[in-house]
């Protein structure tokens, strides 16, 4: 048993204080990073509730339900930021990456505290796979929103489309790594390969804004 709220406070306090001394994109990234950690805690509460309420079992909940909850929870603040502040593409991407990196960091912290960090290989896999996966799915969502906005299609279809892609990607990863075998190896490689593939469109969006 770990006390996730206490861990959140411990990590968040220095970041909150640092917000007073930084500006611009750095401040935006740090704030969204903090938000991502809070969102991670809320998503864990909801998944825990669904686990108990549905009686699916913790493993099945983690494989089938958690991706939906986690992606929706990460998606909501991004969507709120998009519609309330009408940011440019670069600002949207910074906030999306910040939220997802915060989410992944807090999730990894809790996971490693509960299972131990003795084996470096395991810790590396955890960081390179799950950590990158959250960032990639967030980037996919924000790319979807950028494209939808560019074509004036920020409708329910566009928004659900972006969410659908990120959720299915996340779920695919969770399913692949759920049982040992070739699938696990492919699953672990999937986020980093996708991150590499997304780098090109990312540069294109940033270059278009410059």
């Amino acid at each position: 048993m770990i006390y996730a709220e206490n861990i959140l406070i411990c990590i968040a306090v220095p970041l909150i204080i640092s917000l007073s001394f930084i500006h611009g994109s750095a401040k935006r990234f740090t704030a969204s990073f903090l938000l991502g950690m809070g969102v991670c805690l809320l998503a864990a509460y909801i998944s825990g509730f669904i686990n108990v309420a549905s009686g699916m079992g913790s493993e099945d909940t983690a494989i089938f339900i958690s991706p939906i909850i986690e992606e929706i929870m990460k998606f909501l603040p991004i969507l709120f930021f998009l519609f309330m502040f009408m940011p440019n593409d670069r600002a949207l991407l910074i906030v999306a990456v910040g939220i997802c990196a915060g989410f992944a960091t807090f999730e990894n912290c809790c996971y490693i505290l509960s299972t131990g960090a003795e084996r470096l290989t395991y810790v590396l896999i955890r960081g390179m796979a799950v950590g990158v996966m959250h960032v990639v799915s967030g980037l996919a969502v924000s790319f979807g929103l950028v494209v939808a906005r560019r074509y004036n299609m920020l409708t329910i279809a566009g928004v659900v489309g972006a969410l659908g892609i990120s959720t299915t990607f996340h779920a695919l990863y969770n399913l692949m790594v759920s049982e040992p075998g070739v699938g696990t190896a492919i699953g672990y490689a999937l986020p980093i390969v996708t991150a590499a593939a997304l780098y090109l469109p990312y540069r294109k969006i940033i270059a278009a804004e410059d």
Partner: protein
Amino acid sequence: MTLLTVELSTDIIGMLLSLVLIVISLPLIDKGRKSMPMALFSFALVSFMFSLAYWIVYDSLRPEARMPLAANEIGESAWFLLLAAVLDAVLRDRKVPLKTFETLFTLVFVIASVALWIAWSGEWVQDIVGGIPFGYFLYTCVRALRQTDALREIEWRVLGIYCVAIIAGHVGSLFITIGGKKPLDYYCIVLMFSIVIWLLIKSFVSLKRKEDPKVSMAITFSACAFGFSSLYMSSGWFYEFILLLTYITLPLMYIAIKREVSE
């Protein structure tokens, strides 16, 4: 060859086909606002491809086990909503609302389909979550057919009668537990196949004659919608066969959109 092997093979074919279509549609996306339908279509294909990938992994890891409520439902919902958005975007300037009877008929068909899915599987949440976007897609296709005058009056009537006959057949099959069940199931399968094959032939003819791309889009998208509708009402080998037929609509939709975008 077992059913599971066929399932995996059809899913892999669908995934590869989607991947190829995504790759060849990418160069057509970066051409300003006119390329929006193609952008949405490739976006939809990514959703569809991930959903198929999910099925492949699931079937490999847990063969024979029925999939619980899973994230690929969101992917499939996104697929239908994005396809509907493609049609909406193309026919934005031809807003002709359906007549009350046509709207009601489509609504009743969708509700009856979802009710049948629930009766067969008992999975309320999945079927309703998947049914709403699918119903919207089907409604958009029917509206597109009307807006583009893609069907003649006699064809509309035949389509309506077929839809009623399919639903009636399936409802009848639910209540019959003795000998008549099998013939009734085959009767439904024949009707569903007929609609899908008829719409596929119409799609080929429309594309071959180089009709107005909007008309071709309405027909190819409707073939896809009726393909999925029949798919969700089938099981076993018939399911796999209708799935393969439905895959044929993917390149047809791509060709129709490509013509619309490059016009």
